[in-house]
Each structure stands twice: as structure tokens, then as C-alpha cells.
């Protein structure tokens, strides 16, 4: 019989497989802050915009929600992460910015510098 540590390793492997199955290896991973504070700042709309974009054919993007990292005055926040690149953190993302992030960053690879949290 396996001990708890052995069991947890199996469980972790299974979990990672499931995450990979959800498209984790896409070129770009997008995380939208969805804590109460972020939602209050409007992140639910932002999330919906990303979801709609994926439904409407935006490919090679792994979309996930996340908790609050603590940048209260810059919420809603959105991260775009690409392997081998410094993760890009966008702040004060409203509907307009979300659309632009999709068009410029996700589709064309352009980092929109002025919205990036430093």
C-alpha cells in the first residue's frame, strides 16, 4: 500500500495532466483577477470579454481566473504569460483595454507598455 506522500505525488501528476489537458501549453496564458475587490473594480466584464473572444475563435490562449495579488489601486489586473518572457502584468484593465489586449498583445504579440504594472 502506498503511503500518503506517494499518493500525493500521483494526485499531483494527475492534476497537472488535467491542467495540461485544458491547454496550459498554449503560447499565451491569460490570468484575470477575480477576487471580490477585482470584481468590484469591473473584472467580471473583462473576464467575459476574454471568454467571448475565445469562443469567437481566439486560439492558443489559456484563460484562467486568479485571486488578488494585492495591487488594489490598479485593479482589475490581467497577466499575460509567455514561456521565456517576462510575464506582462496589466493594471486598470477595463473593457476597452481588454479588447485592445486581445487585439494587440494576444493576436499580434505587442506588449502595451503604458498599461503595464512596473
Amino acid at each position, binding site marked *: 500500500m502506498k503511503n*500518503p506522500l506517494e499518493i500525493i505525488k500521483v494526485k499531483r501528476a494527475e492534476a497537472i495532466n488535467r491542467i495540461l489537458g485544458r491547454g496550459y501549453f498554449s503560447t499565451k496564458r491569460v490570468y484575470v*483577477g477575480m*477576487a471580490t475587490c477585482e470584481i468590484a473594480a469591473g473584472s467580471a466584464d473583462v473576464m467575459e470579454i476574454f471568454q467571448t473572444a475565445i469562443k469567437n475563435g481566439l486560439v492558443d490562449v489559456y484563460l*484562467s481566473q486568479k485571486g488578488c495579488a*494585492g495591487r488594489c489601486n490598479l485593479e482589475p489586473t490581467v497577466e499575460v504569460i509567455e514561456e521565456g518572457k517576462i510575464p506582462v502584468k496589466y493594471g486598470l484593465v477595463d473593457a476597452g483595454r481588454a479588447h485592445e489586449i486581445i487585439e494587440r498583445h494576444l493576436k499580434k504579440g505587442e506588449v502595451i507598455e503604458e498599461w503595464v504594472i512596473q
Partner: protein
Amino acid sequence: MGDSVTTNQPIEKRPRKQVEYNIILCSGPSCLHNKSSELYTEIVKQLEAFNCQSKVEIILSGCLGMCARGPIMVINPGYILYGDVGVNDVHDIIKGHIVDKTPFSQKVIHEDHLFNRFYRVFGDVKFFGKQMRIALRNCGIIDPEKIDDYLSVRGYEALAKVLTDYSPAEVIHQIQDSGLRGRGGAGFPTGLKWKLTADAEGEVKYVICNADEGDPGAFMDRSAIEGDPHSIIEGMLIGGYAVGAKKGFLYIRAEYPLAIKRLEKALTAAREQNFLGDNILGSNYSFDIEIRLGAGAFVCGEETALIQSIEGERGMPRPRPPYPSVRGLFDKPTLTNNVETWANIPVIILDGAKWFSTIGTKSSKGTKVFAVAGNVENTGLVEVPMGTTLREIIFDICGGIPGNRKFKALQTGGPSGGCLTEDSLDTQVDYESLAKAGSFMGSGGMIVMDDTTCMVNVARYFLEFTQNESCGKCTPCREGTKRMLEILTRITDGRGEVKDIEKLERLGAMISKASLCGLGRSAPNPVLSTLSKFRNEYEDHILHKKCTTGSCQAMLTYSINDQCIGCGACIRVCPVNAIKGIKRNPHTIDSELCIKCGECMKVCKFRAIDRV
């Protein structure tokens, strides 16, 4: 939150460097000691030598938690860690990693701490630079509603390790060795609390997570639960194993619906995976957690009141002893820790008590989360190693005071804490130092005030809060804070009496020593500390009927100066017809009638209204 920013405006004032790499140089106390400042100079030199300074940004960070291997530097992307970096190694590292795009393997260290993942994403953000994310390690990087995400970051491995390798007594040793102290505010040694509960006689024991966060402006617990609910559950599971409990209660205020939803989801997922329930992970250990909602009474954050509330009674503190660790929930030995404390537990187990105890100061180990609010540029949730100074938090992390105003005071510990002034800004964050400076660690509320803030009014605000939230059981807190509030209201209304300061001090001293629970004992703190540090403001209010900051409306006098051209705009807006005058002749304000609403001042285009 400030006004919303239009889409095209940059969100930060500093111009951003477009870089491909950033180098994070640990400048924690230990690395600084190991001459990381010399390294900085050397890095700049080497970057220039290879002519790649434009694509690299150097960031100084707080402690990266690998002091034994310091000095530490990290190169992003990839969060490649270099340890024992000497001045002579810089050339090889820059050349290898940045010029040749091959990490310099001799100095790469593979030590990996749970919190490193956070910095892989956020390591280059200045706001997070001096922070250290242990309790909030996963907040903002995983999907809190997916147990798979938690599992992928070594979730529940600490539980498995404990069940495989440690006896309950060994777990308690680990926690004791770590030096962790209660993050709810009082700072009682966590390991000792566990041991007392473990040693208490009784078959049935309980574990409680106190998530009844109630300080005004505090949201550390909410964020932690909303961002990473499983780490709290895992902490409780380990605690239950250590003290011999089979049942845990998570007491959370009903005003946190999203946190509750995520907890419920997390509990269900954990049950499905057998992290909760019978014979967890094939062991003999069985444990489950029930959520109990609090109706939002501040006092229910007090341990004994919280226990009564879970029992279905009105939440009112009761005298100790008996201590809850001996006789608590349903009269059984009970271990209560707050959210942040629980969130630290898996880290201590996986990264080791020894490692944990290297972070922080002599008496206070690990990190502390603060919710910084008020007059600072960057409000937010901040987790810093103990020992970080208040100045670093306010100015380096949170960007200082906006609008070129002057820092005036800092309130820590919420309504239980005290005000600290400029002189105390170099105080290190730890339980003893803050208390010595005249405040209190508290659960993590931190309110920054600039020079437009009236300290008497601040004291009144906090006292009004505690008076409203007093459970009403003991006389000093119920009646005493009411009288103090009446005195403060009188002072801010311009009706203060000469003896009022003495009365405040007399009542305050008595209430702090005679009250039944911590709420009452700490209720006078905001008053007593502002009295000791801003006594002149009290005196101005009482003796000169003057509020120098202009915050106390009742004490203001509006008058019209000779800039008045007699346009009559003020006459039209005055709701009480206190302004009289003939057109094109200077007007006057009848101060008897004036209700000090300030409307005249708003409409006057000639700066003809004075307010003193």
C-alpha cells in the same frame, strides 16, 4: 480607489524600460551583509561592458528567503536563481546567461521555495520587490476554484508529508521551532498554543479557523481565502492532526460571499480527493471541516466570543481561564488560529521550520500581511518579512504620500492599535517593536494619514467603531467607551472642556486595564496614543476651539474677504440664507446662521470666502 483612468493614459508615472531580462538582486539584510551592494556596481559595470544595459533592468528586492546561500540574484525570465554570487562571478553570469543565453550552471541553485512561484510572475514589479509572499504565496497566481491548480503547486504535499513522516508531537515541534506566532494580532506562539491543546485532556478536540475579519479597512483574510482557499484547509488539517482533532470549524463572516463560495467549493473538492473525510490519504487520520457564518459582529473575532457564536449563542467573550485550549468549543479543548496563521503552516512543513525561522527578527519570525490604505500612492495588500521598517512599507512599497502632502501618522492594528508618527517610521515590523513604539501588530490593518487629517477626529472615528461593536457585556467597554466617545464628540464639535483630556486619560487607563476582553482593553488605544503624540491638537480644539486641519466642520468659521465683488452667487446657494448683501457690494456671512456646509466656497469664483 481613485478616479478611473481613461484607456490611453499610462497607469504608472515612471517611464517603463522595455527590457528582455531583469535581474533581481536580493537586498535583504543578510545579503546586504554579504555585500550585495558591491554586486550591484559590478553588474552595472558588466552590463555596460557587454553593451546590453538597455535590455536588462536591475531590481533590488527584499529577502528572497535563501539567506544561507546569499548573496542571491535571480534572472528573469525563468526565475533562474544564482547563489553565493561573488563579485568575480558577475562577469561569467552576465556573459553566459544574457550574452550567450546559457545559464551559468556553476552558480545556479535549485533550491526552490513555495513562494518563489509568485516571484516568477511578479518578481519585476517594484511593489512586490520588498515583499515576501509566504502566506499569500499562491494568491494571484493560481485559480482558487481549481484544486488541480493548488495540487500543481505542491498543494497538500505538506499534509501528506506530515501523515507519512511525522508524529503529532513532531509536527508541534516543527511549528514551535519555526517561531511562528499568531497572526490575528496578539502574537501568541502558535506552536505553544498547539501544544497546550494537544496536551489538554479529552477525547474530542476541535480546530477553528478564525476568518471573522472585522477591522475597518482590513481585507487580508478575504484575499487569502479568495485567492488560495486550499492552503488554509491544508493548514487546518495539519493542525487537527497535531492536536488530535477530528473536526474543524471555519468561522467566516457572512459579508464575504465569494470567499464562502470558494471555501465551499474547495471543501467539496478536497473531500472528493480524500484530503478531508475518513482515513485521509490512506492513513488513520480522519478530519472534516464545517463552515460557520458569522453575522458580522466585530467582537466575534475574539476567540471566546467566536466559540460562543459557533455554539449558537450570542457572541460574547467570557473570562479566561479556562483557556479555550483546555475548555473551548462545546467545552472541549480547542485550537483557534487565524487565516494567515493557517496559511503559513504548509510552508513551514515543506520548506522547513529552520528555513522559516531564518526570516524575520529575533522574536518575530516569518512574514506579516498588511492591508495598506489611506493616503498612500499604492494602496494594497502587502506581505513583508518581519523586520521590514514602516518607512519601507509606506514609501518604498506603497509609493509614499500622494499629492506632495506630508506624512502625518500611521494607524496599525485597526481600532485596537495606536497611531505612530514620523519618529516611528524606522520601527521594524514585529510584535515587540510595534508595541514599544506605541501601537500594536493587530491583524494587519494599516492606515496612512497625511497632514490634512485631524487626529482627534481619527480617534473619535475608531472609538465610535469600538463602542458600536462592543458586545455590551462588561461595564468599562460598554459604558466607558461611550463616555469617551461623548467627550471626543464634544471636543470635535467645539464644546470641549478643559478637564476633558484628563477625563479621557482616566477613563482610558481604567478601560485598558479593567475590561473583560481584548476589544475593551484595546479600545482606548487610538485615543491614548493620539493624546500622547498629538496632544497639541486636542488642546487647540479645546482651548482655542480650532481644528488646524479644517476637518472638524463645527469649528470652522466662514467669512467674506475684500475680494468679494458682490456677484450674489453665494447668496443663491446658501441653504439657510446666512449671506446678506447688496449687488455689487461686498457681502457678509451671519455666523450665527451659517451651518458650515461650504457651498458658498464652492461657487465663489473670486476666492472671496475664507474658512478658518
